């Protein structure tokens, strides 16, 4: 674990169990493929679906556990548990939080 944890941005699939993170950005497929004008997350169907599920900029997520075969992973957010595969969690860019902040 790097000491300067709060500034480093990683994708959610890289975060080990038990860590708390905050979502910085959800990267859509279209942003890679269709460049400039698709930059709002609402335009990408997968980013939109994740947004509907509560995964959006500023959401705090705890990594709970991985499946026995390594994928998918259970995350806790908005007081419920959500299960995502790597293909989706790799699009979610996050910043590590030092300790739980669940007001």
């Amino acid at each position, binding site marked *: 674990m790097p000491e300067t944890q709060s500034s480093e941005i990683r994708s959610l699939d890289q975060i080990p169990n038990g860590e708390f993170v905050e979502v910085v950005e959800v990267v859509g497929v279209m942003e890679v493929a269709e460049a400039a004008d698709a930059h709002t997350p609402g335009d990408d169907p997968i980013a939109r679906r994740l947004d509907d599920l509560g995964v959006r900029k500023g959401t705090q997520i705890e990594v709970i556990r991985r499946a026995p075969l390594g994928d998918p992973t259970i995350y806790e957010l908005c007081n419920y548990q959500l299960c*995502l595969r790597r293909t989706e969690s790799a699009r979610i860019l996050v910043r590590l939080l030092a300790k739980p902040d669940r007001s």
Partner: protein
Amino acid sequence: MTSSAIPNGLSNSASPLVFGLLGSPNAGKTTLFNALTGLRAKVGNYPGVTVERREGEVSLGRGDSRALLIDLPGTYGLTPISADEAVVNDVLSGSAVGVARPDALILVADACSLSRSLPFIGQAISLGMQTCVVLTMLDELAARGGSLDIQRLEASLGVPVVGVVGHRGRGIDALRQLLGDPAGWSRPAIDAPQDRAERTGWANSIAENVITQRPARHQLTERVDRVVLHPVWGSLLFLAVMVLFFQLIFTWASPAMDAIDGLITALASLARDALPAGWIADLVADGLVAGVGSVVIFLPQIIILFALLYLLEDLGYMARAAFVVDRLMGRIGLEGRSFVALLSSYACAVPGIMATRTIPSPRDRLVTILVAPLMTCSARLPVYALLISAFVPERSVWGPIGLQGLILLGLYVAGAVAALIVAALFKKTLIRGDGLPFTMELPTYRWPTGRVWLSQVVGSAWAFIRRAGTIILAASIILWVLLNFPKVEIPAHLDESAASAYALEYSAAGRIGHAIEPAIAPLGFDWKIGVGLIASLAAREILVATLAQVYATDGEEGESLREALRNDRDPETGNLVFTPATVGALLVFFVFALQCTSTLAIMRRETNSWRWPAFAFAYLFVLAYTASFVTHRVITALGGTDWVS
């Protein structure tokens, strides 16, 4: 309170009110629907898609007035990604064919994860319909130490809010009262923002104001999951549950199925005794009673399957099982929940296909339905048993492992491997993914309520009888007619079994068997096997009884049929009919072919069109014919035209 925004239809008191039930998949929508409608739900499909459509009558608070409740498919938002998800928007806008546009909306949200649902609630309220919000799982919120202020939520949203505990029936009466007068529901002065980001801000400020204490994690769930989802114990438990699940369907159902079988036989002979001998007695005994029997015989398996399935689902284990096995199923483009349906198909494809209802993605569900008949169901076993015991020597291959058992295992494995390959192929070509990401909520563990559980099981069994039973009954009667008509003069010198063989040869089925002989000759099949294949369309195991009839042997169990098969020679060439190549080809044919009208009927019922059962029958027939042909050629090339003694 503003009651100015009365949508069309509310003022029209002649037709009953229509309510739409809208909410995310795990919000407790179905439980609420059941609590409001009891067992009066009508289940169907939306036109053009395989999305289940449920409607029911709900009695309102005032007098005996009733309203129609439409249970909309579970959704997390109103911006659909796939055609299947667009169903919700179509119904709400009134553009869905044959579905009444709701006069008012009931939004269902899980009180524990309210902060997540608020943007959706805002979006739905701003559609402009009369709307109320129902908060479910209030008992769980309290158990997890959370609290929220319903009055404040009502004030913030501008619409009525009711809290319920659906499975305990709490709050349902208050909800009924509220549903009695949707015109009087308040509407917000200002709608939630249309822009997604702004709406999120709007939702967050309401959440902060309304949620007085966020719930902690569910302690019991946390502790149980440490074992149930443990890398080692979790996997072992998954295997144990699946083996037990399969075993119970297989073994618990057998005594009941035997009992039903005995009852049907008794009823048939009773009918035969009561009626004057002749074709009417035959029709009642062998056509009608046996036809009804072929429907009822599925009930034990279906009831046990759904009893276990709903128990695991209501407990919260199904999502965990899917989580554990998801990666394996992901490789072939399906997901964890397909596994259970495919496993159930080992007992019988009919309950297996019904079990696909737990798969949320309609595409994944369709692919699972299409490959389910490849799993070796219990109806193939009598066919395999007859052919293997008649033709495969009881030789030990290695220690206690015998050749017969090994071949049987090989047939089982071939079916499963074929199912996985075909599923992967379909997902890559014909029925590609709908672009939906895999997302699955993990519910907290909950003790199921007996009443809810029972009504689900009874509902599923009833749906099978009503929707598939009629088709199965009709098909059995048609096949009975083919096997028994037209009647021909039977030569007097024939004994009873020879007479029955003679009658069968000149029946419609016998003639069809002769007619298709050139087509099946490349597989090494003669007309007698052809008749067997036609008869086995009713159910695979009927092949055995039909062969017994064709070969004029009295019992299907005994050695006589096996003996007859082994010694049968072509009257013209004098060659053996059942050569190793023919036996191999016939076994392989049964691995693939969809010889089962019940499966076709249930496919029709679950996909709401004849298109998919027709497609499944066609592709499996092509697969069966090709594989059977190749098998025949290969064995012949290896010198398998005669048995080595």
